[in-house]
């Protein structure tokens, strides 16, 4: 996810006069354009079909859209987005500060622990919360009272999604804290500014781009999350769409709701772009980068550690402990068949396929994004980013309708499932690959040209090897997210094809929670492995 930010921030830093020559060079690669156009058109078709489907309903669709109930759903979703974005900042910014600017004991441990909730699928965290703090949950059974407000509905959804998303804010903000030039703050202090005044007037403005980016990711995640609002029965858009899809003989209803959700997410993207437009923070001079001084927490380090421990406890330890409990003592007489080996092979296989596909497909688009500046290619690249605005349930819906009517041969097959993942997660590889490409100085490619390599040879032998680690990070990110994906998988998978996440979903649906233990732990373990791959090159690690 960091790639989305870096790509945007660094793209402009490439020297313009070198660009001219490089552009001319890439214009000789019509393949690149043909492939890119094909990809973008293929991505657009199912979405266009969904729009057609909704528009086709005519007056019925309009009536359905204008019910007060639709407005309720909009309000529910926006409430959750606002609350989660705010609380992600309230948790994320102090977390970032403590792990970058203060002498917090075990700082690196806290940093890694704080990021680990990202490997726990949100629906697993929700199941664990229900198990522990739900009505007649473990806590109540053990201690005779329940310290939590009722978790069903808004409260539980807000809590879980905040825990899952605060790293989206904490990570970029931490990077901003670390990269900040301390001389600015020092100058402000020297000019007589108090601690808080300096923070608000000097430090905070430098955090703003990172904050805006992090909050955008948080908001987009909140709008697209499916498992939490389903399990905790909060009637946000994803839930309303899925329930309408399953409980109506009028398919346009789900399509209409899905379109409204897409409008909401696009609105958020535009809002962020508007807010962070034209804000740049420059360092003055090129002196050696100096680390800002550490703040001594003194006795405050104990409450600070407690603060860092809370999200770790709820987002990581609680789910793992609950899963372990079930794994050690399944205690269910269930007829559900859980073949852990086959499920793991399926999950890793399909996620790997999706990740590699996303990596390959992103390549021509990323090269265009970085090396070509025409309006048309920029439009194409922006279109390929639309997965950011399409929650899994919307992509599932679009591809189901599209598959049924237009490509029945591919309906409920592996390719269409992979296409769904691609549509959803291509932005990850696109951003990381573009980011990696921008860091390659075009003059190296020019030199290779000068030494007699043909343009495609340059890409193959110079550009790719240099961008490799960046590409790999994006691929790993797609892998991680595909493994946890639920709604599109449920809707698009071939009949009889189960993954760890669909099996967890089925088992929880029939109340056989004991069966969730092992698949859940395996899912988290494999996620940890892929996160390690991402962190291996991550500058925040």
């Amino acid at each position: 996810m960091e790639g989305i930010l870096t790509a945007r921030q660094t793209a402009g830093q490439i020297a313009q006069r070198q660009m001219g020559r490089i552009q001319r060079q890439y214009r000789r690669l019509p393949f690149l354009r043909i492939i890119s156009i094909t990809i973008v058109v293929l991505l657009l078709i199912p979405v266009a079909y969904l729009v057609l489907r909704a528009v086709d309903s005519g007056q019925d669709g309009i009536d359905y859209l204008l019910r007060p109930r639709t407005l309720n759903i909009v309000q529910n979703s926006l409430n959750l987005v606002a609350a989660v974005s705010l609380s992600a900042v309230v948790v994320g910014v102090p977390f970032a500060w403590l792990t970058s600017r203060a002498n917090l004991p075990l700082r690196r441990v806290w940093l890694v622990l704080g990021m680990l909730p990202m490997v726990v699928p949100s629906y697993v965290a929700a199941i664990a919360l229900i198990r522990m703090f739900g009505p007649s949950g473990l806590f109540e059974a053990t201690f005779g009272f329940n310290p939590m407000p009722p978790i069903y509905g808004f409260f539980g959804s807000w809590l879980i999604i905040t825990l899952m998303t605060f790293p989206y804010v904490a990570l970029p903000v931490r990077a901003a804290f670390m990269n900040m030039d301390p001389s600015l703050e020092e100058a402000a202090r020297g000019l007589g500014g108090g601690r808080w005044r300096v923070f608000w007037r000097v430090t905070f403005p430098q955090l703003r781009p990172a904050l805006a980016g992090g909050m955008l990711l948080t908001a987009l995640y909140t709008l697209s999350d499916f498992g939490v609002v389903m399990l905790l029965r909060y009637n946000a858009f994803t839930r309303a769409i899925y329930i309408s899809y399953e409980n109506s003989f009028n398919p346009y209803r789900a399509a209409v709701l899905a379109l409204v959700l897409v409008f909401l997410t696009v609105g958020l993207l535009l809002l962020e772009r508007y807010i962070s437009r034209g804000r740049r923070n420059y360092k003055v001079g090129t002196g050696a980068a100096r680390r800002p001084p550490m703040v001594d927490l003194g006795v405050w380090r104990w409450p600070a550690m407690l603060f860092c421990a809370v999200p770790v406890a709820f987002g990581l330890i609680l789910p793992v402990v609950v899963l372990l409990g079930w794994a050690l003592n399944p205690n269910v007489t269930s007829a559900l068949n859980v073949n852990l080996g086959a499920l793991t092979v399926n999950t890793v296989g399909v996620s790997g396929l999706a990740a590699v596909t996303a990596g390959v497909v992103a390549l021509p688009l990323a090269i265009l994004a970085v090396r070509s500046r025409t309006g048309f290619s920029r439009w194409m690249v922006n279109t390929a980013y639309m997965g950011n605005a399409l929650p899994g349930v919307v992509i599932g819906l679009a591809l189901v309708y599209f598959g049924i009517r237009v490509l029945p041969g591919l309906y409920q097959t592996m390719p269409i499932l992979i296409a769904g993942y691609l549509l959803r997660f291509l932005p990850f590889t696109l951003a990381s690959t573009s980011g990696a490409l921008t860091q390659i100085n075009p003059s190296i490619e020019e030199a290779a040209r000068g030494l007699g390599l043909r343009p495609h040879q340059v890409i193959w032998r110079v550009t790719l090897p240099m961008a490799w680690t960046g590409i790999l990070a994006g691929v790993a990110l797609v892998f991680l997210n595909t493994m946890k994906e639920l709604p599109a998988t449920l809707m698009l998978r071939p009949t009889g094809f189960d993954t760890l996440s669909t099996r967890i979903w089925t088992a929880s649906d029939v109340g056989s929670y004991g069966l969730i233990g092992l698949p859940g732990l395996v899912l988290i373990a494999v996620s940890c492995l892929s996160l390690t791959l991402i962190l291996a090159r991550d500058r925040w690690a």
Partner: protein
Amino acid sequence: MRKLFAFGLVFLLGLMALAPVGAQNTESLVLYSGRNEELIQPIIDRFIEETGVQVDVRYGNTAGLANQIIEEGANSPADVYLGQDAGALGALAQAGALAPLPDDILERVSPVFRSPDGLWVALSGRARVLVYNPPLLEELGLPLPDSIADLTDPMYRGLVAWPPTNASFQSQVTALRLLLGEDETLAWLQDMIANDVIPFSNNTALNQGVLAGEAVMGLTNHYYIFRIYNEDPDAPIALHFFPAGDPGSLINIAGAGVLATSDQPGLAQRLLLYLLGTPAQQYFADMTVEYPVIDGVALDERLTPLDQIEPPDIDLSDLADLEPTLDMIEDSGALD
């Protein structure tokens, strides 16, 4: 770049080649099942084992899968549809999605357990009931309701559970529409919601909820509590049948039909025949504790025989009017 392009092309073609692998085996069926996996997969596994026919099952919501089949039209990959409610089967029959069944299948069950046109057949029977938690009810000093209509009484505020996305519940609402009329049914749904009814995602969760005291009583099918009794014979949960003729005491079925578009009708009928055979019916009677639909299979001794329950005067095929029910449930706010 050419290499890259070639690689991409080969990769995509490889993906396409993966697609038809499952379809090449001629001895294979696709079953869309609205009954959950836990209840139906064991008997499907037995069929696979005994016949060698591969059955791939797509599990989902009874109404959702019926709608999906209608959407899929001529291209539906499904050969057999299995639903947990006569309404969805009837809706499929009305949409022309089901093929007529041969007499050797239809004649295995009495006429009340099959569609009048011979398009679907029941596999098991179930009674709509109210489950309740006796100690909790006693603690509150409340009487059991005499009718499903009484559940809107303020004395039951926040105590009653229902599963609004469950097909058997949806059929019950269809029955209410037929018996009470549209306006009164919508009013009942809205009064239930105003009375803080507790929604559950399915019957299993609802029964567990009543057992755990999250709700004191709930509208559900009769057989879930026996699964609870199997683990703990003294579990604090019991059945309450609404009195004779009350819309709450509907008898419904789980049933199946063969799709008109199936390219394996013979194989599909074989699956249905198997599910209507004595071993499968005995499985439904013993393992899921439902009412068998063929003669010669013993009823679980804990069950009230069907002829002693007096359901309201409704034909199962009357329940086919599902679409207005689904719209009404959604519009009432029950799904929010």
